[in-house]
């Protein structure tokens, strides 16, 4: 892979918080990169550190009190340790973000137009005429009916799905290098979720955007992602192309997640499930963090952390069951 292809390159990123009882290692040494024009999906269950990862990239984690280490290389520059005012030109301009809760992403006191205008003013143009034209075009682009009217309306006058589409319009308006979407459809109904996913996919193709898409739903991953990184307890435990993940999941956790889909055929039988519960972030087990729940656990798993081993050029996994370059799939 050539270097120019990577729009962002994260190396050994660690984000720790000080908690009531001990250090919370929310993100504990993860490395990944995002290629130009791809959708990279970070999947994992609640609390595994997905949001903390992207919030760190966006410079939204205050440090101190948190401690951030490692490298986030964007445009040849390391974003770790960057001051808040240096971030200003990057955040919302070069890297933009779509959040889970559309309602709380807007200030209820200002109209939609005013709020998008603020972004346009700081990053693009201070000409009001031009800015309004741009915004209305952007709203049209995300299928908002009557964009001229919506421009002057307040957030509470709109439904969740509509607000989420406006958020997407806001994220796209500066023509960013990277869009980070943190569970953008989790708060939406399935029919609206389908609309929003479809819209995102179309826009992504049209603009050739690079997207980091966070979700806990593998179904959504199958619809939108090009590559998938599975996270568990602050680590990325498997990286692969979306087809590989669904066809040849390697890590026992990934396999468990895929199996826990409720399929029609299971009717009248027990559903397959993963034993136990997700560990709390201050009591991660030693060795492989999945070991208390893993059906294939070996002795070494409780003492030593598995390293990332590359199985083939589009698939790597952190698990003692696999050796570099070898695909001894368990079943």
């Amino acid at each position, binding site marked *: 892979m050539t270097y120019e292809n990577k729009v962002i390159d994260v190396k050994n990123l660690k984000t720790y918080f000080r908690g009531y009882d001990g250090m919370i290692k929310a993100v504990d040494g993860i490395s990944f990169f995002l290629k130009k024009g791809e959708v990279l999906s970070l999947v994992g269950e609640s609390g595994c550190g997905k949001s903390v990862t992207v919030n760190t990239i966006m410079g939204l984690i205050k440090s101190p009190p948190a401690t951030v280490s490692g490298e986030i290389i964007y445009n040849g520059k390391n974003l770790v340790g960057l001051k808040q005012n240096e971030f200003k030109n990057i955040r919302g301009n070069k890297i933009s973000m779509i959040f889970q809760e559309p309602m709380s992403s807007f200030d209820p006191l200002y109209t939609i137009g005013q709020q998008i205008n603020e972004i346009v003013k700081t990053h693009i143009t201070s000409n009001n005429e031009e800015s309004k034209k741009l915004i209305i075009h952007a709203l049209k682009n995300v299928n908002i009916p009557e964009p001229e009217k919506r421009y002057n309306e307040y957030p509470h006058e709109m439904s969740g799905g509509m607000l989420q589409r406006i958020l997407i319009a806001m994220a796209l308006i500066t023509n960013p290098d990277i869009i980070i979407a943190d569970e953008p459809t989790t708060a939406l109904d*399935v*029919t609206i979720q389908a609309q929003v996913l479809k819209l995102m996919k179309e826009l992504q193709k049209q603009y050739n955007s690079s997207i980091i898409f966070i979700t806990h739903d593998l*179904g959504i991953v199958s*619809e939108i*992602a090009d590559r998938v990184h599975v996270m568990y307890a602050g680590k990325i435990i498997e990286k692969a192309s979306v087809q590989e993940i669904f066809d040849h999941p390697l890590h026992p956790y990934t396999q468990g997640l895929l199996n826990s889909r409720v399929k*029609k055929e*299971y*009717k009248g039988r*027990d559903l397959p499930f993963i034993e136990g*519960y997700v560990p709390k972030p201050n009591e991660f087990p030693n060795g492989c963090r999945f070991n208390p729940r893993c059906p294939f656990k070996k002795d070494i798993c409780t003492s030593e952390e598995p390293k990332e081993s590359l199985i083939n050029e589009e698939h790597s996994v952190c698990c003692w069951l696999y050796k570099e370059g070898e695909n001894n799939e368990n079943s």
Partner: protein
Amino acid sequence: MKILEAISLKKYFPIRSGVFLQVCGNVKALEKADIKIEQGQTIGVVGESGCGKSTLGKLLLKLYDPTDGKIIYTDKENNSYDITSRISKTVASKFRRDVQMIFQNPFDSLDPRMNIYDIIKEPIAANGMYKNKREMNNYIASLLTGVGLYPEYASRYPHEFSGGQRQRIAIARAMAVMPRLIVCDEPTSALDVSVQSQIINLLKHIQQENRMSLIFISHNLDVVHHMSDRIIVMYLGNIVESCASEELFNNPLHPYTKTLMSCIPAWNPKEKKLGKTITDGEPPSPINPPNGCPFHPRCPVKMDECEKVKPMAYDCGEGHSVSCHLYKK
């Protein structure tokens, strides 16, 4: 044998405003629902947020008074009572023992200031069971083991448990009075994906062992299909389709049900299916629902009469009923 039957059950929540809170409108949360629950049967309820699923569940539990309609409760001795009218204390306490609920958010449904023992003891004591302390301890321990928790957990407090464990505690509490019917309001949607299946299996086992009835509310069609014998599909306060769960998956009739099914992701990257189907628009507000068919503003096969006449429930054979003009005979 029947346990509960709702007959054209309706619930409007008045919207009030002004200094003396005059009624200035209604949230039409549930319109004329007919439901029958037999012993040992599981009824699934699906629909999008705000379509009235929880309202239906809470009405059946008498947590709300219905605006209109009747709920007929049949006790173990096969006596029936209309519990929406005034009922005697004995009937009320029988009903309370017979019908329980499990809530969506296990972080909200357990009192943070009580330990697990007291939480589970509450319904037992309220119903005057197990007055002897020793028996009570043994019973609570057996309930905890029954839901896959250690009896030693009884002295701990809710915040020490994960979401899945708390949901197990909530199940133990619901099971404590040995109910004949449990209303499960989205019992797995607040849980981690890897834990959801555990809870579903547990509920299914408990149901089969005790020949209990369940009303299983969820927005996830797959989960509802797995759990239920019959499925009710709701849209904007209306029951739009109801039939056996196999039938619903093999032969969905209502345009909304079809839409809902097409929105389930494929779990197969080769056939990204969400790009193909389009359903425009969003559910309208239940305060001003559209005239005629509630789904008509979004319906892909809308006809002229759909805007004016509200479709009644048409029977399409084998207990399959659909509220849509397409199936008028």
